[in-house]
């Protein structure tokens, strides 16, 4: 069942809202079978994303965020529930969903423009046209002048921008990102956040960001879905009513601080549970 995004409680989503959504995740349950028995990674996770909306999914480590990313991206099957894009059920990688991965994922043997042109090459776009279109997306992520460089010659932040440009080049309806800036320092992360906001505004791009970083989520999102520690459930969906267009300057505002505090109060309990469980596991491992 889909859920509404307002208030502190998760409530069933009215049918009309679910119908307007570009992405619907409904009653997602994912179980893994391990040597120690079954583990429920996601339990009854439901939400919707409207066209042009920026939704951030936040939760402590081990809450099943990356599992959710893989399910929505169509890379992971074997779950209960339903994921649909524009009413069409997702049963594998879907052309309307573009994925940006947490791990560095540029092709080291291709230069920047050839990396970005990759999905166009797969789609059979003629070389001259695809290079031209790739240059447009390279420019959009602010990498003008680096077209002929190889990933090894770029910084971590630049490489993630190449990955993002490559995904944007496939012109997906939904851009799905799994902690794309997790490996970067805070200042670079804030500045890249500006770039993401700029791109979203320019393309009116629907975005779904998986993150564990509260400031990043508040800086970028229209709504934040807070997840519980294992099993991952929807704890609360928070509307972020900060003005748009936004930049990283918003982090110094009072309203921003209030949202961060509110989300941290929700996450604190879950993160503490995660920490206790991790310590308990480490203790058991030490005893064995």
């Amino acid at each position: 069942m889909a859920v509404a995004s307002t208030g502190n409680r998760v409530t069933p989503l009215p049918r009309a809202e679910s119908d307007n959504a570009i992405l619907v995740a409904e009653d997602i349950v994912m179980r893994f079978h391990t040597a120690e028995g079954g583990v429920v990674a996601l339990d009854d996770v439901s939400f919707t994303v409207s066209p042009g909306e920026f939704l951030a999914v936040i939760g402590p480590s081990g809450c099943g965020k990356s599992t959710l990313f893989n399910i929505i991206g169509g890379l992971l099957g074997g779950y209960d529930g339903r994921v649909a894009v524009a009413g069409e059920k997702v049963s594998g990688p879907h052309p309307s969903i573009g994925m940006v991965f947490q791990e560095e994922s540029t092709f080291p043997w291709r230069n920047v423009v050839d990396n970005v042109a990759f999905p166009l090459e797969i789609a059979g776009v003629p070389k001259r046209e695809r290079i031209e279109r790739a240059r447009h997306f390279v420019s959009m992520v602010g990498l003008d002048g680096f077209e002929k460089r190889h990933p090894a010659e770029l910084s971590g932040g630049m490489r993630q921008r190449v990955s993002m440009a490559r995904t944007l080049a496939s012109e997906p309806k939904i851009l799905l990102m799994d902690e794309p800036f997790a490996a970067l320092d805070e200042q670079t992360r804030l500045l890249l956040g500006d770039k993401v906001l700029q791109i979203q505004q320019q393309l009116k791009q629907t975005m779904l960001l998986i993150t564990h970083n509260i400031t990043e989520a508040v800086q970028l999102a229209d709504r934040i879905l807070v997840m519980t520690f294992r099993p991952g459930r929807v704890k609360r969906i928070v509307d972020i009513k900060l003005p748009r267009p936004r930049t990283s300057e918003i982090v110094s505002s009072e309203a921003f601080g209030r949202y961060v505090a509110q989300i941290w109060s929700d996450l604190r309990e879950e993160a503490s549970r995660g920490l206790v469980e991790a310590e308990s596991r480490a203790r058991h491992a030490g005893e064995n």
Partner: protein
Amino acid sequence: MAARGTQHWLPPVVGLSTFVAILLGVEILIRAGLINRFIVPLPSEVLASFGRVVAEENIWRRFLLTAWECLASGLLLTVFGIALGVLLHRVRLLRLACETWVAATASAPLVLAYPLFLVLFGRSSLTIIMLAFLAGLAPVILKTIEGLATTRRVLLDVGRSFKLTRAQQFWKIYFPSALPTIFVGIRLGLIFALINVVGVEFLINFGGLGQLINELAERYDLPGTYAAICFVILVSVVFFVTTERAERWLTSAG
């Protein structure tokens, strides 16, 4: 600008100077009687013998024959080595069953099987090519498996997210990702192949530089023998440079 120019020519100059310095050192040690000149000839004598070896021993025909045998075995071990490596990577059962055996053949002295190859292929270049091919095959297979198996998961996920077909996944991601490791295998295979080409030519007294080394050694022409060995090194250098160029070209085409 000047620093960049210096960076360009300095390494080869240092390399060449080191080589000349070593030869001079050997020359001095031999002349001082510290190295037996009946085992190691004077480098100056080796240098002087080049003209004689080239003029009297039909060196270019022999050089080309050895290079051809090396090229033929190199092409065979590249094609079959990569194909078998891909097959073993794809079929897990086959890999588990065969990988150890393939690794074992890498260190086996296959050259000792030359009488069998003489029976099968006669006293011809084919015997030499087939033995060299088999001797160099294992490293190409093993390095192909390693290269494909170490392709990063996230790159494959990128391919899946763009809905690549199995063939596209192989040619656009697996293969270019594995290419540097595959080329390590090809270079190792070529080294094994060249050793076996020269070794079998020497053993069966046929054809190229191996036979020439045999003949010159029989005549106790030590400077000539060492000069012929220099031409074997030249074959090795030619193949090393060729594989390096091929790798660069294939990588840029990936």
